[in-house]
Structure formats: structure tokens, C-alpha cells
């Protein structure tokens, strides 16, 4: 296959180096920008859209572990999203009236980790028998899983109320009454917040996004992440480098599923409603598109890709309101965008190679401190000794 060699551009080189060097500042500026948005923008629709973008960022970063890090095609991610949402919905619905110790399971802060665990549990249960399959076969099984979850939700009326869905009465609360001994100095009442409306959820989701990005970055630069990359690049070579392929694929699947579960539980509390309509197979494809558009495996890329696709949906919805037929066919626009991307930028908006090329300054200092005589990494100069 012919590979087009990109024209060398000084500015492009400069940009790519500065981007990978300054990824911390990129995240920092993004953090400040997003954190203060609710202070400047009072339009609730805009806030709502940004919150939605952030929810999808959690989902897309969670999915990214499978096709981006481990190199498997997962079409059933929405199944874990649904499992997370229904963990929240069924717990609050069935235990809503209960008083006593069980009522703790209607607490948002307890449900969120439970949803993650539940997602991971089903991820492992699905992964152990099916991860032996490779390529397209595996993708088909995951597709089946998504449909299976949807069918179970529709048919198990006693648990999920089927197509009617579950209305969530519970609001997340933050009870800081136990801090009263400290807070009474500046506030006379015990601190207790009930979250309702978009702004509190904006901050809850923002907080979870930050944690997700940190976790993903740490995974990427760890032994675990490298094992995934090895599996993605060449399974046989990975095996012969001592990596237990099955084990690491199942771990990837469980972690990815738990992020789907977390996002699902937040979604259920935020929209106060969980129904099988929200977890159609289409949603899986949409999240996968976000990952592919941004650049598989590249964390800033996935964030950008998600932002572009989700906000594009909303933009199209607003601007094309007079022509409903065009609004309904907005997915055609997505398709066109992806085709154009595959033609001109097949590695995504921010390709992985651009992000990961540079060695971090920490690594440089470690190598430098190892043995001054043996290799000066910063100048690229060889200082080889004959005795080694």
C-alpha cells in the first residue's frame, strides 16, 4: 500500500513538539475554562450541552480502553452504560420506600461505585468466554451483548418496569452534617445539599471527568497500559514477552465496563428517567465514532472528538430547526464527517503518535541520574565505555 509522505513543515513540527511537551498546560487551561463556565454563561441550554459533552467524554474514554489501548472492536459498550443506569434506577425504585440500613443503597454516592462494580462484573462475565475470539467474531458477540441487555430490560418487567421505564424520585444529596463541629464557626446550620437542575450535575460530571482523565493517563503510562499496547500491536510477540493475553484483555474489559457503569448511573440521576429507549445499539456506534474521530488511543484526541460530535448534534438541532427532515437525518452528516476523516486524517484529530513521542522530563532526569558516564540522553550524544 502506498503511504503518502506528509510534506515537512517547520511549523507543524514545532506545533507537535510543543503540544506533547505542554499537555499539562492544555489540561490546566481546559480545567479553568470549563470550571468557570457556569459563572459566565447563564443560558441553561448551553450548560446542559456542555454537561452532556462531559458525560460522553466519560463514556468515550472508558470505551477507548478497548479499541484504543487493547485493539479490540467493542460494539456492545452501550450495554454497560445501560447496566449502570439500571443499577441506579432499580435500586432507588425498589428500595426507595425502605427505611433502615438498606436505604443507604439509594444514596447517589454509594450507587455510583456500585454501578462501576456491577459494570465490571458483567464485563468479566462477558469477557472470560468471549475474549478468546478475535477480530470480527468478537465484535459480533459484543453486538449481541448490547441487544441482550436491551431485551432483558424490556422483558423483565418485575425488575425494570420494561418499556415504561423507571422515574427516579431520588436526588443526589451531599450531607456534610458530620462536619458541623467545624462548619458551625462560619455557618449556623448543618451543611446539607440536595442536587437538582443542571448546574450541580455540571460539577458532579466535571469532577468525574477529571478523575477519569487522571486514571486514563496513569493507566497509559503504567505496566498495565503497556501490556495492553503490546496486545494491540502484536499478540504473539506480547505472549512471548510474558504477557498473559487473556488476563489483560479481561482486565481491560472490566475497567472499560466500570466506566460505562459510572456514566450510566450519573445519567439516570441526571435525567431522572431510565428507559430502554436511551440505550439503543446506535448509541454504541456513536461513542465508537467519537473515539475514532478523535484518534484511537489518544486521550486528548478522544476528548476533542467527543466534544465535536456531541456539540455538532446540538448545533444541527438548533440551526436546522425549521427543517425537521434535516434534523432527523443529522446522522448522515456524521457519516460524511467520518468518511472525510478516514480519507484525510485516518489516525484521528489528535493522533496517538503525536501525543506520545516525547519523553517526559521526569524520565530524562532518571536516565541522567542513573550513570553520568554512560549516556547523556538530552544531548543525544553517545558516551559508551568499552567495559560494558
Amino acid at each position: 500500500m502506498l503511504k503518502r509522505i506528509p510534506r515537512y513543515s517547520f511549523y507543524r513540527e514545532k506545533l507537535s513538539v510543543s503540544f506533547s511537551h505542554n499537555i499539562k498546560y492544555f489540561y490546566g487551561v481546559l480545567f479553568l475554562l470549563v470550571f468557570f463556565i457556569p459563572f459566565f454563561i447563564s443560558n441553561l441550554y448551553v450548560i446542559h450541552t456542555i454537561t452532556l459533552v462531559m458525560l460522553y467524554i466519560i463514556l468515550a474514554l472508558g470505551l477507548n480502553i478497548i479499541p484504543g489501548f487493547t485493539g479490540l472492536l467493542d460494539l456492545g459498550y452501550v450495554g454497560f452504560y445501560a447496566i449502570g443506569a439500571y443499577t441506579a434506577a432499580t435500586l432507588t425504585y425498589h428500595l426507595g420506600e425502605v427505611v433502615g440500613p438498606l436505604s443507604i443503597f439509594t444514596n447517589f454516592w454509594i450507587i455510583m461505585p456500585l454501578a462501576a462494580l456491577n459494570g465490571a462484573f458483567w464485563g468479566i462475565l462477558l469477557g472470560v468466554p468471549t475474549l478468546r475470539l478475535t477480530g470480527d467474531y468478537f465484535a459480533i458477540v459484543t453486538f449481541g451483548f448490547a441487544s441482550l441487555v436491551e431485551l432483558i430490560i424490556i422483558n423483565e418487567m418485575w425488575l425494570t418496569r420494561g418499556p415504561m421505564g423507571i422515574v427516579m424520585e431520588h436526588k443526589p444529596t451531599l450531607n456534610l452534617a458530620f462536619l458541623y463541629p467545624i462548619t458551625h464557626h462560619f455557618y449556623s446550620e448543618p451543611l446539607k445539599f440536595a442536587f437538582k437542575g443542571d448546574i450541580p450535575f455540571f460539577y458532579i460530571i466535571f469532577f468525574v471527568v477529571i478523575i477519569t482523565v487522571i486514571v486514563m493517563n496513569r493507566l497509559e503510562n503504567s505496566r498495565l497500559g503497556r501490556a495492553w499496547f503490546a496486545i494491540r500491536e502484536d499478540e504473539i510477540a506480547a505472549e512471548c514477552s510474558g504477557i498473559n493475553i487473556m488476563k489483560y484483555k479481561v482486565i481491560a474489559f472490566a475497567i472499560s465496563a466500570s466506566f460505562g457503569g459510572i456514566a450510566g448511573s450519573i445519567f439516570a440521576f441526571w435525567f431522572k428517567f431510565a428507559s430502554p429507549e436511551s440505550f439503543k445499539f446506535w448509541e454504541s456506534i456513536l461513542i465508537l465514532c467519537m473515539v475514532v474521530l478523535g484518534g484511537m488511543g489518544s486521550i486528548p484526541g478522544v476528548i476533542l472528538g467527543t466534544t465535536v460530535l456531541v456539540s455538532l448534534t446540538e448545533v444541527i438541532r438548533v440551526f436546522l430547526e425549521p427543517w425537521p427532515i434535516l434534523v432527523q437525518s443529522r446522522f448522515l452528516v456524521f457519516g460524511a464527517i467520518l468518511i472525510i476523516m478516514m480519507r484525510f486524517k485516518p489516525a484521528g484529530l489528535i493522533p496517538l503518535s503525536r501525543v506520545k513521542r516525547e519523553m517526559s522530563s521526569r524520565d530524562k532526569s532518571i536516565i541522567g541520574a542513573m550513570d553520568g558516564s554512560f549516556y547523556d540522553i538530552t544531548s543525544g550524544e553517545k558516551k559508551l565505555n568499552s567495559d560494558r
Partner: protein
Amino acid sequence: MTAEKEILSIKSLTKLYGGVVAVNNVSFDVKEGEILSLIGPNGAGKTTIFNCITGLSRPTNGEILFNDNGKKAEISGKKKTLKPDAITSIGIARTFQNIRLFNNLTILNNVKIGRHPRSKKNFAGAILRTRSQKNEEKDILKSAVRYIVFVGLEGSIMEIASNLAYGDQRRLEIARALATEPKLFLLDEPAAGMNPKETGELMELIRRIRDMGITVLVIEHDMKVVMEISDRIVVLEYGKKIADGPPEEVKNDPAVVKAYLGTD
């Protein structure tokens, strides 16, 4: 080097692919500290033996035993066959005939992955960045750099593996395999496609690997390389062993001459 202990014993190994007999009742030992060459015409079953030793294919019959200073392991026997990752962990590393690198990763990361069986921090360590995890990462980095320097690739440590020249890709593969700290190192046609200068450097590298105390088992077609570096040679033809001995002896063995040149 005259160590008498066997590090690897292959006992009546047979491998069938359908009706094709790839390896037919082959037995030989690899002695600790030697460089043993496995030679033979194409299709003689050399790579199949490598695949059986590293667990990539399952022998139809026979035993493979690994003995590292009294630590014995049955790689393949009547009851069970170890998985490739377990075999790497007990100290057998290999390279491939058609180079298998992690193409989109940097050289440093390629070799860091080789440290996998010699480190153990997993999910919790990665997320919490505990002190012990940081120390382990530091060790991984240090030893990875050491192996990169050992094969002489330190000039392009942050280069993407697929951008390397062919000879350098070979050396990177060797560095990655060495990073798993093997006791027995299998090289599958390391000199294929190399020019005489690169071949010379490769022979030097193989000798240095042996001097680290690693036993080397090598498949090679380049007879100059084989005769120069080997302590002992095993010759295969059509899946059968036809000769086994030091280079001078094998060179003059009538069966070997017949296999390579034919008879009139």
C-alpha cells in the same frame, strides 16, 4: 565453555500438521552456556521446534524439559503444556524469523514491555501511583535503557519502532527479548537479510549475550555465521535429526553433505 549441565532437554519430539510430519522423533540437549545452532534445509522443522519450545504450538508427542540450576520445569509433557507467557517467565526468550515488533510504540516502550514478566504492579498501583509502583517504574526504565545500550540503539531511544532500519529492528527485537532476563535465548534466523558488516556486528552481539551467562540456541542459514559462532550444531532434514556435534565434525559428516549438496 564446557558446562555439562543440560539447560533444555528435548526428548523424542514429534509434531504433526494434519498428515504432514513437521518434526519426527527429534531428541537433543542444550548445554548450559553454549551456543548451539540448529540448521537444515527449508522445511526441515527448525522453526516448528522453536514454536514448541516457546509454547506457540503444542507438540503431538514427546517431552521438553527446562532445567535452570536445579529449578526444573516441564514445558511440554504428557500431562500439560505451558502457555507462552509462562515459558517466558521461567526464562526462555525468543526472536522471530519475520521480525515482530510493537510497531507503533517507541523503542523505549518496546523494551519496557519486555520487562513485564520481571515486574508485578497492576491496576491499583497504576492508579494510586504508590511509592513502590514509582520505584518499580524507575527500575523498569533503568533496565530498559541498559538493554537498549547493550544492543547499541541508544541514539534513537524515542524513535517509533517501525521507522528503524531493518538491522536495527533485529537488534531491538533482541533487546526486548533480553529484557525478560532469559536463561535460554532462541534466535530465529537473526542474520537473514543483513549485509556482511551487520552480520559481523550480530555475531559479536551473540557472543556478548553468551558472555552474560545466557545459553543461545540459534537457527541460521548463513553457514559462515554458523561455523564461526557455534559450539555445537544440530542438523535437521525432513523433520529428522541427521547430525549433532561440533562444527568441524558436522561439516564433514556425509549425511549433512548429502542433505545440502545431494549425491551423484
